[in-house]
């Protein structure tokens, strides 16, 4: 019988005990006493969210291929168990062996969104690992962070020993080899950090000192250890088909958010939307070959038994062999009761044809992401979607039987004016009118339903908008009311629905996204005030954060609404993410001049990512 860290009494008194027992299909079992490295991989959110993440599954598989390594997992205990672990002083444990995380060699934490930062401290705290890197000894695991938020790791600098900047498939083996060597030679934690600092893509925060000017901006950011370089260059997989993918993904017992096979078809994006961090930091676009994808589609469906397969990428329509891939999947799946899900598709004749084959038209809805309400503002953000294309796509979809449309927008984008906000309502109205013009009365299944949602814009590092001033909470809400009121004036008001996001949490996300080391003290204070699961609206309590800012003497406005000069040194400037600061500046200025930039397949814009030697930059050149 498998050993469990928690007693029956505890497991039967918490919600969803299956979150804490491990033992899932395809879980890797090894004898911990036979390995050199015990690595615990963590997603700092609840199990059902964490288990849905593809990146961890890739690394889990990759690490466990090493004979000398046993990689296990841990997620954030839900608030009910959190309380019990604290009361009974039970150390947080890994799901596989059920052993305490504090006894591992590594604790790897993926940083997928800013609002999980207090949960990182929860994981450390419940594991009984000191929160601060400087307080850890030879007894404690090396705490390493990676993932999108590692592109500005500074708010978390105090809590991590290492950050891995970029894509995980490349230098982890080198890092683990260095760890084993160091351990076998009986050398110290600090020796290992020095070895790690010399590996490309690895950032050791304690080997850098930051100085600040009187106005609070950064004066200098310098290494204080000879092993640490001035710049850390992101790691990137040059040839996607050479990178390891998952052979046997874990299949949870619980219904998790992403309860399906996820097939990554490409990484990166050619589009260059100026608000999008992923579109910049994952440059250049690199595709998987068709044979590779066919092989893994078959393999993953077989080893998991999932009833759905989903293609993953930032913009699936840009995958050059999409029709061949989709036809293959339809061929494979339709007779076996397997659904195909195709997110992030551009709505056009091809995608509508495919969607009508794989989905129930009556039940599904179409999604457009115009992101901004007017063409002017769409030019500013470089979103190459025009009103004409949207209306044309909607018309074809309505002819095909769809009558539900979802529209995604952002509010608070740079240069946004009242007309841009009102454009959200006007565009929604135009789509409704297309429906009533296109579909004759007798063929209508009730009203057309158009749901427009807006999130509030957060400027992110390594985007052309990293210089942008963010709105205040009041400005955000004012803008949402302008849109809402405009919706009321529309002729087809009853067919339209408008939702908007919460503003408090957006402002906080803005602080953390472009924060520096001083923001780390606020994260810790907020955690100590009780902030946890901040990305869950029912748990988010802004007052805990307000108090933390006040107690730490940190002004959130400095990070959000301040104007930044082009000369300012940003906390993340020591990272070379591929896209040069010069390129980002050019794009920022073009944005303000309302000029669009063509996509990577139309014309190279010299962003700097060509230096990696692969991907779309070299297409049609071999």
């Amino acid at each position, binding site marked *: *019988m*498998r050993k*469990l860290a928690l007693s*029956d*009494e505890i*497991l*039967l008194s918490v919600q969803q*005990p*299956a979150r804490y*027992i*491990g*033992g*899932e*299909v395809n*879980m890797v079992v090894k004898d911990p006493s036979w390995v050199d490295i015990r690595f615990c991989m963590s997603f700092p959110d609840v199990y059902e969210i964490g288990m849905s993440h593809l990146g961890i599954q890739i690394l889990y598989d990759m690490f466990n291929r090493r004979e000398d390594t046993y990689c296990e997992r841990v997620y954030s205990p839900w608030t009910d168990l959190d309380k019990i672990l604290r009361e009974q002083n039970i150390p947080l444990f890994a799901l596989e062996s059920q052993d305490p995380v504090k006894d591992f060699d590594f604790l790897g934490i993926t940083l997928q969104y800013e609002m999980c930062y207090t949960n990182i401290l929860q994981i450390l705290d419940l594991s009984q690992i000191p929160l601060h890197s400087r307080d850890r000894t030879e007894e404690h695991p090396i705490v390493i962070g990676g993932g999108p938020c590692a592109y500005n790791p500074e708010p978390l600098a105090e809590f991590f020993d290492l950050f891995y900047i970029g894509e995980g498939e490349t230098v982890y083996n080198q890092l683990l080899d260095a760890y084993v060597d160091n351990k076998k030679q009986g050398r110290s934690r600090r020796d290992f950090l020095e070895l790690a600092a010399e590996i490309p893509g690895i950032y050791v925060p304690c080997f850098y000192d930051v100085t600040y000017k009187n106005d609070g901006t950064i004066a200098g950011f310098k290494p204080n250890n000879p092993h640490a370089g001035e710049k850390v260059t992101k790691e990137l997989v040059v040839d996607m088909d050479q990178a390891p993918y998952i052979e046997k993904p874990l*299949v949870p*017992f*619980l*219904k998790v958010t992403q309860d399906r096979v996820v097939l990554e078809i490409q990484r990166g994006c050619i589009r260059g939307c100026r608000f999008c961090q992923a579109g910049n930091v994952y440059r250049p676009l690199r595709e998987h070959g068709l044979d590779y994808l066919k092989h893994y589609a078959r393999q993953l*469906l*077989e*080893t*998991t*038994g*999932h*009833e759905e397969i989903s293609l993953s990428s930032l913009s699936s329509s840009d995958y050059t062999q999409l029709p061949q891939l989709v036809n293959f999947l339809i061929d494979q799946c339709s007779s*076996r*009761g*397997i*659904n195909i899900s195709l997110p992030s598709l551009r709505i056009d004749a091809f995608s509508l044809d495919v969607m009508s084959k794989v989905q*129930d038209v009556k*039940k599904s809805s179409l999604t457009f992401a115009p992101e901004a309400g007017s063409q002017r503002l769409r030019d500013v953000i470089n979103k190459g979607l025009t009103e004409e294309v949207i209306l044309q796509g909607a018309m074809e979809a309505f002819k095909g039987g769809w009558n539900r449309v979802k529209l995604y927008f952002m509010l608070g984008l740079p240069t946004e004016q009242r007309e841009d906000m009102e454009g959200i309502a006007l565009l929604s109205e135009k789509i409704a009118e297309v429906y009533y013009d296109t579909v004759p009365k007798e063929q209508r299944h009730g009203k057309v339903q158009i749901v427009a949602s807006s999130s509030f814009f957060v400027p992110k590092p390594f985007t052309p908008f990293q210089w942008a001033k963010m709105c205040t909470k009041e400005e955000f809400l004012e803008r949402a009311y302008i849109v809402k009121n405009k919706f009321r004036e529309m002729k087809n008001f009853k067919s339209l629905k408008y939702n908007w996001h919460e503003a408090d949490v957006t402002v906080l996300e803005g602080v953390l996204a472009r924060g520096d080391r001083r923001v780390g003290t606020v994260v810790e204070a907020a955690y100590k005030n009780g902030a946890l699961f901040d990305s869950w609206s029912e748990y988010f309590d802004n007052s805990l954060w307000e108090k933390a800012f006040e107690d730490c003497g940190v002004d959130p406005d400095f990070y959000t609404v301040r104007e930044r000069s082009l000369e300012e040194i940003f906390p993340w400037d020591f990272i070379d993410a591929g896209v040069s600061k010069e390129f980002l500046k050019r794009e920022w200025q073009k944005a303000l001049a309302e000029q669009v930039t063509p996509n990577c397949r139309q014309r190279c814009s010299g962003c700097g990512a060509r230096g990696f030697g692969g991907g779309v930059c070299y297409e049609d050149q071999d």
Partner: protein
Amino acid sequence: MKIRIKFLKQGSTKFIGHLDMMRYFQKAMRRAQVDIRYSEGFSPHQIMSFAAPLGVGITSNGEYFDIEVLSTDSSKAMVDRLNNVMVEEIRVLSYRKLEDSGKSAMSLVCAADYTLKFRENNRPVDLDGFFRELEDFYGQEQIRITKQTKKGQKEMDLKPLIYRLERRGEEIFMQVSTGSTDNIKPELVMETFYQSRQQNFPEFAFRIQREEVYGRDSRGLLIPLEEFGEDIE
């Protein structure tokens, strides 16, 4: 072709709820490439139905569900194929063919066996005394209880629904009425017993295990659900 599958659910898998077990087996059918029948329509689902849901926290040596298949290998081969894709603590025990007119496991269920083991902290000091009292309790002509139902409280006699209640070494064995009408949980029997002794029933008093689930054959005898089917050679 109708098939009945028997499996056991042990150890940590007792924390997996009924709906998640159904999803688990749906995926297992695909991994084992069972040629299962799907319903018609735009989102086809597997033809699969479970006999009697098992509560979270209870292990079992005899769980059942029925499926329909379009083709099949021998029982032995299918059991092996399924066990190759199971997790360690869930094992398929039998895979048997039912007659086309055979009733579903769910509609057949009318009794189940349970064993209850004392947890360490709940073991009575006077074990023999405990079992004597249990025997007296079961020996009553009537065991009146008030059951909380959706429509309010209902007075009922538990006695005819407890088919057997006896000592087996240090364990309690019981066979109780199970199914859509008169579904008796072993906890209810024990709770009633504790109340009859003027004691509170401790929440985690026993480790409970379901041992077998029964239906009635044409003569009205209780027989294990798997015996309604036959092995495929």
